[in-house]
């Protein structure tokens, strides 16, 4: 039974995002044609389908849209992370992403709270973008 953590394998579209996290920067795509911010990274803008996209560094800061405390591992690979604080974060640019919250006390977490990035260098290749209360 292979229970090594299911870390991401970047693709040609997503490599700049993961490369950014390795150097503790949050990079987002933005559409040059319609101006919309994009997450997750992809080849075409999900508003206008343009391929004319650029990368831009942002603060990575945002607000807590929602979260849960998973008291049973969502997969056996996450047994050591229980209780998992799984969250959706609204970045200030208006895109939303999935993350986990780094916090000792779930009771302190409030939907709508300001949150800031935590760069978790899980190994030499991968940095995950986690969050904590600002």
């Amino acid at each position, binding site marked *: *039974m*292979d229970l090594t*953590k*299911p*870390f*991401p*394998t*970047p*693709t040609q579209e*997503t490599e700049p995002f993961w490369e950014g996290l390795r150097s503790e920067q949050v990079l987002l795509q933005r559409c040059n044609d319609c101006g919309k911010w994009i997450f*997750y990274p*992809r080849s075409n803008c999900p508003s206008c389908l343009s391929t004319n996209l650029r990368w831009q560094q942002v603060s990575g800061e945002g607000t807590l*849209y*929602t*979260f*849960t*405390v*998973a*008291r*049973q*591992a*969502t*997969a*056996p*690979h*996450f047994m050591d*992370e229980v209780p*998992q604080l*799984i*969250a*959706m974060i609204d970045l200030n640019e208006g895109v*939303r*992403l*999935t*993350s*986990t919250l780094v916090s000792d006390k*779930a009771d302190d977490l409030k*939907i*709508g709270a300001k949150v800031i990035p935590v760069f978790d260098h899980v190994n030499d290749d*991968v940095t*995950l973008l*986690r969050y904590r209360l600002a």
Partner: protein
Amino acid sequence: MKLEGKAAIVGYHEYPHIRKFTGKRKFTLGQWADLTRFSLDDAGLEASDINGLVCTEIRETVSFTPATIVEYLGQPVNFAERVDLGGASPVGMVWRAAAAIELGLADVVVCALPGQPIPSNPNPGPIDPRRYFQSSSVNWGSPQAEFEIPYGNLAQNCGYAMIAQRYAAEFDYDPTAMAKLVVDQRRSGAANPNAVFYEKPVTIDDVLASKLVADPLRMLEIVMPVAGGAAVIVASEDVAKRCKHRPVWIKGFGEHLTMKTPTFAEDLCRSPVGPASAKAFEMAGVTRGDIDACEIYDCYTITVLLTLEDAGFCEKGEGMEFIRSHDLSCFGDFPVNSHGGQLGMGQGGGAGGMTQVIEGARQIMGRADQRQLPRCDHVYVSGTGGIMSEQAALILKGD
């Protein structure tokens, strides 16, 4: 573009829902054949009457699914479709069958969803990653593989829990009302011999004392996986008139998909079942007040709450008060999941949502025995796939 409402559910079959299946195991293909046979028999039709089928995935092949089933059944068809809408598949299957019949492609269409375990493979091979990651894909290039699974956001519990948490931040969230919903449905399930919780009602205290799984969802607010499986036969007006039961006309439907992962929902508290239901009501020319029973996909309590609101049975934010002020059991003033729902019956995998379609048909046919509603001519049915990401609705009618 709308249905004329001239295709009907004419027969069905439902395997009993069992927690630990100890009977003779059959392959999905064999279950398909059994379910087809029993539902044809229920309608008063024969194998050779079939000329259409709608399926979902089966265990014996990854592709060419309809052709494999057609060959196994030995019945050629003029219309074959594989639907891939998760828990919304049963509703999606039924309206596709009705549409094909109204287009004249077929006049007897079988829609089956096996849900029993298959025989153990003596040469099992490598573990299928879906065993761990369930409906989230770990294939390279999959958005879930890169942006969801590494953070542990997978399977269903945490997604629905995050919807409920968001709802609680915006509106009135009452754990006791959610528990009452379970109690009302389990009361109906306790009167359903096919249900895993037959003769096993629960109390509000039982629900509130059950283990927290993912805040705020507790164990008894989450479906229990069981062995199940079901099929329905959809037929043309001419065929329906010579079948055994009161025809259950498919008068309206709607379907709406917005995303795979709920992180990318624009608004977690307003689900795709809203547009799907609006379309279904409009097509059927029926109002919410005409509905005698709601058979609402209920993988979780929050699914039912949002569906009641989004389908227009109450206003947004008033779902908890609606649940508090109505008896939702089959004996009550506003029956929701008169069969117990999947919370009362157990969830037979992908077949779970077919229990909602079948209960709607059963009530209109007048075959619900002790659960039979005094009057049942119009039924609303919903199907929910993914994490409120792909949803569909049906309006069923008896003449």
